[in-house]
């Protein structure tokens, strides 16, 4: 369910490709650090996510109704009074969505944070220290990886009475760190023999300082992308758990809405308004996170960044298509030829 981060496994920020003498312009270079935000996809994603965060914060206050309050409008379609219609108890679906956002965001981000922390701790440590430590941490990672996550979550949540959002987030976080840990370990392996790591070791830095201050900053993009991926996964997991009714969550989240809608056969009664909005809300949140992930991917790999710009505008307004292997030739060159001269021999020049 997470977006594969294979591209990130390949490229490490600021290395190799940047080792060209493009250094001279400090202001531009500095700005590059924030280039990620200027990425169109990432910006779109961030804006959508921002809206969700806002709703998560103020949702319960702006909700027109108490989401649990019953009324006499049973299973009513969308109307001015109830934008997303009502449930079998006459509850306002719109208010439920607004109120539910907080739990979804909380669980998503908390679980993401927990899983990311674990994956960093385990993945980076394993990758950097190597040897026995690496072996045992790798086994741990693999064991967690091969135990199916969702069933495991179901089991663990069923041990807990009345799991709160925090607890659910903890469970999701604890069961979903392994993939990222693997990616990070691979990344760290390729980083740890880098000269700058060796150099700081040679200059006498302590191991934990090397891991925290030398390695981790270079893994930020990978970590961030892993975080975003885990958030998506956590949101989907929470919703799944709520949907199948194993989480004893007393509050509202989108999964709860779907649970009720499904339990009451919302679609069977043609009450689509009860079922559809929550799903779309999830999809949109997921899309925004994926967009941010793309942004991170492109930020990390300049190749991907420029890959988007395949059509360039010339000064004269035309477009040029970039192709690998066939560099475009601009016939209407903007640069004046200092010595334009006709070739004496016949030239086959075809318009294409």
């Amino acid at each position, binding site marked *: 369910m997470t977006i594969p981060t294979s591209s990130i496994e390949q490229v490490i920020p600021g290395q190799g490709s940047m080792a*060209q*003498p*493009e250094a*001279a*312009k400090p202001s531009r270079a500095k700005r590059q650090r924030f280039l990620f935000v200027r990425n169109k996809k990432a910006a779109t994603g961030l804006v959508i996510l921002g809206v969700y965060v806002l709703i998560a914060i103020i949702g319960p206050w702006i909700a027109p109704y108490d989401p649990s309050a019953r009324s006499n409008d049973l299973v009513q379609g969308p109307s001015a009074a109830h934008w997303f219609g009502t449930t079998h108890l006459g509850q306002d679906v719109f208010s439920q969505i607004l109120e539910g956002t907080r739990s979804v965001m909380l669980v998503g981000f908390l679980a993401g944070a927990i899983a990311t922390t674990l994956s960093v701790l385990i993945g980076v440590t394993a990758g950097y220290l190597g040897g026995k430590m690496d072996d045992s941490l790798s086994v741990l990672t693999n064991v967690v990886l091969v135990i199916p996550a969702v069933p495991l979550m179901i089991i663990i949540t069923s041990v807990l009475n009345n799991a709160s959002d925090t607890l659910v987030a903890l469970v999701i976080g604890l069961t979903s760190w392994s993939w990222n840990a693997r990616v990070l370990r691979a990344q760290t392996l390729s980083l740890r023999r880098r000269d700058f790591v060796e150099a700081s070791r040679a200059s006498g830095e302590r191991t934990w300082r090397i891991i925290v201050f030398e390695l981790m900053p270079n893994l930020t993009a990978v970590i961030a992308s892993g975080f975003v991926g885990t958030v998506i996964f956590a949101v989907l997991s929470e919703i799944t758990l709520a949907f199948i009714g194993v989480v004893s969550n007393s509050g509202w989240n989108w999964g709860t809405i779907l649970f009720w809608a499904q339990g009451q056969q919302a679609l069977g009664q043609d009450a689509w308004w009860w079922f559809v909005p929550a799903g779309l809300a999830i999809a949109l949140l997921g899309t925004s996170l994926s967009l941010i992930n793309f942004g991170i991917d492109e930020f990390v790999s300049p190749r991907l960044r*420029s*890959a988007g*710009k*395949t059509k*360039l*505008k*010339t*000064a004269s307004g035309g477009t*040029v298509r*970039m*192709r*690998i*292997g*066939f*560099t*475009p*030739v*601009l016939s209407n*060159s*903007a*640069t004046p*030829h*200092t*010595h*334009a*001269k006709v*070739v004496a*021999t*016949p*030239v*086959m*020049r*075809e318009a*294409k």
Partner: protein
Amino acid sequence: MAEPVLEIRNLNVDYGLGDRAVHAVRDVNLTLHRGEVLGLAGESGSGKSTLAYGMTRLLAPPGVITGGEVVYHPQQGPAYDVLGLTDRQLRAWRWAETAIVFQGAMNSLNPVHKISTQLTDVLKAHDPKMSEHSRSARAREMLKLVGISADRMDAYPHQLSGGMRQRVMIGMALILQPQVVIMDEPTTALDVVMQRQILGQLIELRERLGFSVIFITHDLSLLVEFSNRIAIMYGGRIVEEAPAATIYRDALHPYSKGLLSSFPALRGPKRELAGIPGSPPDLAGMPAGCSFHPRCPKAFEPCNSAIPVLGRPDTPDGAGRSVACWLHPAEQPVG
């Protein structure tokens, strides 16, 4: 002097378009003659590789060729502009007429295919009628030519040492008997012993097969030893061009002089090493006038306003050489 095989005329290559474009190659004029080794030197970022890729249209995005011509003179038939060929024509022209050897041989060979496959698929693409058997015979022959025993045919690139890989690349470049071979820093990744072996071999093959070579490196001492003529690039332009011995003895452009005095000599008296102060220019924001003037010890008035034109200098031995420097204003521009 022999007839030309490849003439580069006013070639301009940019990275990107519009205001933020980097003009990596500007108004380059260069002629390669049949059978000669033309050396191209200049420090990192001066546009050597861009020129090589640009004239073959192999530049990766966002590179664009913004003007100029690359006129190719085939052995038979009329000359034509390579930049004007259709995709099909260009594909047919590539390798058959002009082959390229890149800097990193490890990266030039597809890691997942055997070298035999990579050798024969050139043949397959350019001569589909050729039989399987004669293809592999030809591939074998080429390997032998570059001193690799035929039993390494079925090796994968990673199973060969760096030197062997580079030799495979050279063999592959010659497999269609092209007229021109462009070599972009073919030996920088190798150590000196290997470097000498390979270059020696190349020179020998050139004598036998008669192709011309454009040899790119920033190691001037290597060029002086191995090439017939040398062109020196700075900031995307050719700043000086002359026969190798001439440049070595008497470089005219201050930058060429600087380059020549930057490497220590192994033999003879220890000579003065002056180096070049300052750092290479930023191609995106080139200084006005001669782009070398901020670093030039001899810069004077016109240098910071007007761009010197590459032309025949006013020196006594000016024949056959050209320079772009206000110290030696051109008598007759090249082009």
